């Protein structure tokens, strides 16, 4: 069950079947760029996040959406190790979340999402680094203030709230100007990383006037 809470008209509990009824599922083939320098082209199955948000009926106070993942110690032994402050938390500004490119994925390669890829549903925000795509979401909370994400809490100087793919702003420890496309084999060269992962036309207007060096 997914809990919808915070700045909404009425908190709701949704099952995955309820989510299926919100909007017809569609296939979206997106590039995914990891903050650690690899990328991959992935056919997702999901529904526009905007549809889910409309269904949730946020109030006028809602400025951000927070996504909280499950942290079940029994089935997910990794969360016993304090690498991050579990559960995994991610967030988007409401207008980012409403962008038509953002989806809530429930499937992958035409199949139901496997556990390791974030079943039953996960976020896919193709113009941001892969870690923004919170997996196995159990809570969607609308907030007035910017949520503190798990990576911001762990290393705020390295992972910002926005985490837009940006070849001109390096990670403090490694380059972001190029990437390795998965599937190319041992001898395929790196390719140039594109601004907003190649989705600038669709999303650049969300950030007009913002210093993307500061808001990394």
């Amino acid at each position, binding site marked *: 069950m997914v809990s919808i809470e915070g700045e909404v008209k009425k908190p709701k509990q949704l099952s995955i079947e309820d989510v299926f009824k919100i909007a017809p599922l569609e296939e979206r083939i997106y590039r995914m760029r990891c903050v650690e320098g690899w990328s991959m082209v992935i056919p997702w199955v999901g529904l526009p996040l905007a549809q889910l948000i409309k269904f949730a009926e946020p109030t006028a106070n809602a400025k951000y959406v927070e996504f909280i993942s499950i942290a079940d110690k029994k089935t997910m032994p990794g969360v016993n190790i304090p690498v991050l402050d579990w559960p995994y938390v991610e967030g988007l500004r409401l207008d980012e979340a409403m962008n038509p490119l953002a989806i809530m994925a429930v499937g992958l390669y035409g199949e139901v999402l496997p556990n390791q890829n974030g079943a039953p549903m996960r976020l896919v925000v193709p113009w941001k680094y892969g870690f923004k795509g919170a997996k196995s979401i159990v809570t969607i909370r609308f907030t007035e203030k910017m949520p503190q994400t798990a990576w911001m809490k762990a290393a705020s100087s390295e992972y910002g709230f926005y985490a837009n793919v940006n070849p001109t702003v390096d990670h403090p420890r490694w380059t972001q100007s190029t990437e*390795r496309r998965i599937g190319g084999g*041992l001898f395929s060269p790196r390719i140039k990383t594109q601004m907003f992962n190649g989705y600038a036309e669709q999303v650049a207007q969300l950030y007009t006037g913002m210093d993307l060096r500061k808001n990394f």
Partner: protein
Amino acid sequence: MAIIYQPSKKQISWIKSGLFVAALIPLARLVWLGVNDDLTANPIEFVERSLGTWTLVILMITLSMTPIKLLTGMVWQIQLRRMMGLFMFFYVCLHFLTYIWLDQSFYWMAIVKDIAKHPYVLVGFSAFILSIPLVITSNNAMVRRLRERWKQLHQLVYLIAILGVVHFWWLVKKDIREPLAYALVLAVLLGIRLYYKKSSDTSMAPVSKVAA
């Protein structure tokens, strides 16, 4: 202290041959995985990191010969040290070759920028460069020629090991458990040396007083 095990000359040469073959297993494994198209979804990163990991492992083995001597009194294993040091260099060369060839496609501008701009690359590169003089001076003739200075020069290996572990530490995203394990092993290996050096210094002190 009691010497635990003292192999004969012949046995030592067998142990050495065995170790030589064992040290080639990590490379053979990569070749095997490569032939079977089994180098994970990100083969270049896998090969690069595997070679880096084995460089560190072999370096730690190299650095453990003296602590074994200090702890047990055994000295024969020191005869294996040079070979392991050279294997460390063999793996770091393959690691570096993977980096400049498979990872960076010999794109020199990007390589220079990467080394200059990113501390983890710089410390790793420094460790690699610093290991070159040790390899050049590793034969018997150089040991004889340089005498005391050879010992001083080869103390560089401590710095190389520290840089190597830092290189790994700074490269991981957040889960530092693996580099931490190498840091702890290195701390123990260097700690044993320091402990014995300190206790031998203090036990020498009265002697030098008498001499004075």
